[in-house]
């Protein structure tokens, strides 16, 4: 088995009286794409926040790169894309990329190449000089993804990356994600699109603060005796 990039063991998280995560066991290894699916409010975003060190676990352990989170320095080796676009509207696409590049600690000499590469992946090269305020919804989403891709992070954490992106580009992005995986890097991705879940290497089904099932899509389908991940999802929810 490859090296574990993310290792969450018996993770629990409470916000006040409300228990959001009860017992999360989740690993993301180098060279794999792990999908995180579950209904709204299941705690997908909380899992991501703990992995990034924005929240601290109340119980269990959260390790990234074999280091207990939170750890500020490790963030330079991760790429994060949130559900919201999180862009500076008054800046151009390039200025956004450059700013976050500096924040990530990318060396000045490499910056231009990094920006060109990230923009190329999401097909935004032609629009880099335009202000983000003039971007369409899909363009903003792509720019947001490009920011996460900056600096070739070893671990990508993507929160619903393909919402609002047209099918052709979505396919292109998945191809790129596949390349990243093949390069030995890891990706944790949350999604609502079930046929995307089929494209992942392993799927974690999050429900009521617990990981109900965590295996290869094919194995899960077999386990639940259904044809698609969507049915797995529905069935798991129904059981609960």
């Amino acid at each position: 088995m490859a090296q574990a990039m993310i290792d969450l063991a018996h993770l629990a998280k409470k916000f006040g009286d409300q228990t959001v995560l009860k017992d999360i066991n989740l690993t993301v290894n180098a060279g794999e794409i792990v999908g995180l699916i579950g209904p709204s409010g299941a705690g997908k975003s909380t899992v991501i926040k703990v992995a990034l060190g924005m929240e601290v676990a109340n119980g269990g352990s959260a390790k990234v790169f074999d280091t207990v989170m939170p750890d500020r320095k490790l963030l330079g080796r991760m790429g994060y894309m949130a559900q919201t676009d999180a862009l500076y509207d008054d800046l151009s696409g390039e200025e956004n990329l450059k700013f976050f590049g500096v924040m990530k600690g990318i060396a000045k000499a490499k910056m231009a190449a990094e920006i060109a590469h990230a923009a190329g992946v999401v097909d935004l090269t032609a629009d880099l000089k335009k202000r983000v305020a003039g971007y369409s919804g899909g363009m903003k989403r792509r720019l947001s993804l490009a920011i996460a891709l900056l600096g070739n992070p070893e671990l990508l954490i993507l929160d619903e990356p393909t919402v609002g992106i047209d099918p052709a580009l979505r396919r292109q992005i998945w191809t790129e994600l596949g390349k990243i995986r093949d390069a030995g890097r890891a990706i944790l991705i949350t999604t609502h699109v079930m046929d995307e879940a089929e494209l992942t290497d392993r799927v974690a089904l999050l429900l009521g603060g617990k990981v109900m099932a965590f295996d290869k899509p094919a194995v899960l389908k077999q386990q639940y005796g259904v044809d698609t991940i969507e049915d797995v999802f529905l069935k798991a929810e129904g059981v609960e």
Partner: protein
Amino acid sequence: MRTIAIMNRVLKELIRDKRTLALMFVAPILIMLLMSVIFNTNSTTDVNVGTVAVTRKLNQEMGDIKHVDVKTYDTKADAKQALQDEKIDAIIKKNGNNYDLTYANTDSSKTAAVKMAFKNAVTATSIDQLKSALKKSTTGMAKLQAQLMVMQKQQAASTTAATGNAAAAKQAAATKAKSTTTATKSTSQKTPKITNHYVYGDKDTGYFAKMLPILMGFFVFFFVFLISGMALLKERTTGTLDRLLATPVKRSSIVFGYMLSYGILAVIQTVLIVLVTVWLLGMEVVGNMVSVVVINLILALVALAFGILLSTFANSEFQMMQFIPLVVIPQIFFSGIIPLDSMADWVKGISYIIPLKYSGDAVSDIIMRGTSIFDEGWNILVLLVFLVVLTFLNIIGMKRYRKV
């Protein structure tokens, strides 16, 4: 490095947000101009003065002054009625050798105009009196000289008679003494006591000059507080703060980046406000202008730290606006625009936690009294304590969004 990048980004965003920039730079100037026009209208104010039992000469002198109209009344009751009916703005009554002045004082500029006119008129009349007194004393001198000549003649006539000589000296001394007494008599007559009465308020009503240094600080505080608070709030609500914190950036770099960018902005704003008040409004700056800018810069940083801190308690721009009546407006009350001496002790106590008070005190001292910035150590120290504590709280407070 990251701090500088954050500063650059914030500045770039601000420069592209033309409306906010205009708010920061044009609004204070516009308000100050308006205020100066509204408060400083003395030069064109027409005042009506009622006089009772005042010499004709004084009446005439006052009437000759531009924008002053004099009406004479026979009794004080008549004049008072006129004052109540708003026909006149002030009453001047001669009481023996003294003057009683009663002002309606509903308009401080009119009161000031009357005071000025009265003072001028009195000076003019007393100059006349002085002239006549001078004439008197010159005639006295002439007399003395004549007497002296007579004496000299007498001396020449009877040089042998020693007794006669002594008598002449005595006589001369007596005349001298007489002339001095007449002189002192005339000067004592020329200083009448003036008593001022105000129907409304007191002599301190209306003092734009006193307000200006504090107003300047207020504008800096208000706009930096609001805009920086809004900016960080926007970062939070749009998710850019989360994304920023998902990079290895230090929390302190974010806070310092904001401080640098808004510090630069505050310097420009202060310089602009100072220049406008000096050149357009004709404010006299006795002290060093650089000192004024320095103190306002510190105040701006306090406002920035305050704005960022409070923005964490707001969930929307509107909620940020709600801090204005709670946080910003009370600052005006305790800043020294309203004299603190007249307040109850416990109210005075509140002023000690108001940053604007310290900057207001310091800037007022510098502008109006020419105090050196090095003598404002206490005020600056308190402001710096505010700044350090608030900045520290901000860096700690960001832990809400990222635990390291």
